[in-house]
């Protein structure tokens, strides 16, 4: 009897560890099943489909990002395959945002599957681990959301759909100098996170150049002591800052906003794309975010046709969940790759190395309009150039800043 209970518990424990993976692989399976008929159809029409692969966190603590990118990409693939003409076969592998062995083995699985173009990774750590591999294999890489500069600088075959971190910081500084030239600014950032540090450094360099008044520039925290951010907020309050720059994720930002409100401190808070999602935190009092400014390339409330159609489809596929900018980045990545493939005449029979050379040629000259920006181009390093967009939270929704 005792043994039986022990076995039962062991089984339960194993189930709990893997249950997340299970739902992930199930969903991948359904996507594959959905794609298959169109894939076969395509084979009959125009030759084999182009195989595009993605790695990202589909389970675990960062799965929000990976699932969003995958959801956005799936919509683009469905739309393109429904058009006829060049077909796309799409496969996503789970890397749990683990930059060590899991990312590379997810990438290798995709290579075994016959991937021609790599549309990952979702997170910077994984992207850095895979980037060197793609250089060796001569596989074209366009990451939707890995924003560190080092990713694009690893090789000439690597391109980014999102802003690099220092660029985002610099555009934040430019925006502040235009809209709030007289603000006394405080900067709080996570010194243990390359994303946050990259933005903060880019911001501080540009702010100095523009002559902005930065009163607090060293209010940092780390992953180990972020449980209490009251000291950093107090520092900004004491220095008389009326503008506080928060280049980190909404999880910690919710804490900062809540604490600032309890001590009756109400400056203008200014966030980056990691702040996107703060209004959806369960239990968060969204009135605290009123007046919050954030830079995000995608606004799900926009009324243009492309956005409305994307949001509707995404909600249908994902139990009514509103897409965030990661989903929009994923959608744009597939369309950018599709346009380049059509222009360069790449199809399922092109080898990965040939496709890589052709795509590099295309990306250095082409201009793309997408959900996350109009007239997007890439520089010689593979970093994107697009107009930064900022919104301000008004009555609980994003309103584009004029």
């Amino acid at each position, binding site marked *: 009897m005792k043994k039986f209970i022990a076995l039962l518990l062991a089984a339960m424990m194993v189930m709990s560890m893997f249950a997340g993976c299970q739902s992930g692989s199930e969903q991948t399976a359904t996507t594959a099943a959905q794609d298959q008929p169109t894939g076969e159809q395509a084979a009959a029409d125009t030759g084999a489909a182009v195989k595009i692969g993605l790695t990202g966190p589909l389970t675990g603590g960062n799965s929000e990002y990976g699932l969003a990118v995958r959801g956005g990409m799936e919509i683009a693939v469905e739309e393109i395959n429904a058009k006829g003409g060049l077909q796309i076969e799409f496969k996503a592998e789970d890397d749990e945002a683990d930059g060590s062995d899991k990312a590379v083995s997810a990438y290798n699985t995709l290579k075994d599957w016959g991937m021609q173009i790599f549309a990952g990774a979702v997170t910077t750590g994984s992207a850095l681990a895979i980037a060197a591999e793609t250089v060796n294999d001569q596989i074209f890489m366009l990451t939707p959301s890995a924003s560190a500069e080092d990713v694009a600088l690893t090789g000439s075959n690597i391109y980014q759909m999102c802003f690099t971190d220092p660029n985002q910081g610099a555009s934040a500084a430019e925006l502040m100098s235009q809209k709030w030239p007289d603000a006394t600014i405080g900067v709080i950032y996570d010194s243990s996170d390359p994303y946050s540090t990259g933005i903060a450094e880019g911001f501080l360099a540009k702010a100095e150049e523009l002559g902005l008044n930065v009163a607090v520039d060293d209010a940092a925290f780390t992953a180990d002591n972020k449980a209490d951010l009251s000291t950093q907020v107090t520092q900004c309050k004491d220095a008389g800052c009326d503008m506080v720059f928060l280049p980190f994720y909404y999880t910690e930002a919710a804490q900062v906003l809540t604490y600032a409100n309890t*001590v009756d401190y109400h400056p203008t808070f200014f966030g980056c794309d990691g702040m996107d999602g703060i209004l959806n935190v369960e239990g968060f009092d969204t009135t605290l975010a009123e007046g919050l400014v954030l830079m995000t390339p995608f606004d799900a409330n926009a009324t243009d046709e492309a956005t409305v159609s994307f949001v509707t489809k995404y909600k249908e596929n994902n139990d009514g969940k509103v897409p965030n900018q990661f989903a929009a980045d994923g959608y744009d990545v597939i369309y950018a790759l599709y346009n380049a493939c059509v222009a360069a005449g790449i199809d399922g029979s092109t080898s990965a190395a040939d496709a890589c050379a052709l795509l590099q040629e295309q990306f250095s000259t082409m201009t793309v309009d997408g959900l996350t920006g109009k007239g997007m181009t890439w520089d010689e390093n593979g970093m994107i150039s697009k107009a930064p967009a900022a919104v301000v939270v008004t009555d609980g929704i994003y309103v584009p800043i004029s």
Partner: protein
Amino acid sequence: MQILQYLINGISIGAVYAIIALGYTMVYGIAKMLNFAHGDVIMVGAYISFCVTNYLGLPSIVSVAAAVAVCTLLGIVIEGLAYKPLRGTSSLAVLITAIGVSYFLQNAAQLIWSSSPKNFTSIVTMEPISLMDGQLVITGEVLVTVAASIVVMLGLTLFTGKTRTGKAMRAVSEDRDAAQLMGINVNQTISTTFAIGSALAAVAGVLLCSTVPTLMPTTGSMPGIRAFTAAVFGGIGSIPGAMLGGILLGIIETLSKAYLSTQFSDAIVFSVLIIILLVKPAGLLGKQVQEKV
């Protein structure tokens, strides 16, 4: 003025560490094991309280009671299934099991409540007290946390000093074999310790999330390790020591962030810990036990 505000912030987070540390120290002092899953029981307590308030719409006092009840039960179940079968084996085996339980709880929480963060609504509805034209703000959470940690500390001291069960606990702590020979049910005493420790964890979870509102499956692990440090700092096994260690750790952490460096605050806190342990190896209030050979 500034320094007073930082001191209050330090005491606020320190008092939370203190309550968590009391749970650590109880279990270590009596069962002689490090319950690394303690931080995760805290997280479960916070989630229970969050669910009762947000999904069932019940008042916060009911949510605290529910959290205490669920965590006590959870503590007894964990102890019975994971630790009791290992009684008498090497302490390393129990330690590894505790780490396993910790992962189990985190993964289970991720499965039930998903990994996206929730924002905990503070159970304290008191308005913050503003002194000297708003330069100094004392939030209701600080007062409640400090009061709760003092009550818990006094309660535990009285309980272990005066009651029959408490005396049995002390006996088990001093010499397990001798206690058994005296007719004390060692197994049951240890189970009771776990139940009390887990009930404390529930209270700590609610207070932690009232102070720091972000609630995720990993919420308990870092404060848990901090509190463990605080317990060692104050002298592990000593009830007033855990309280003192927690408050001091919070204050040192906040002041070093404010006046020395935010980035190196951890290095500073842990350097202080090393120095204290070099001078007083048993911790601030720990008893030096002579090993008899």
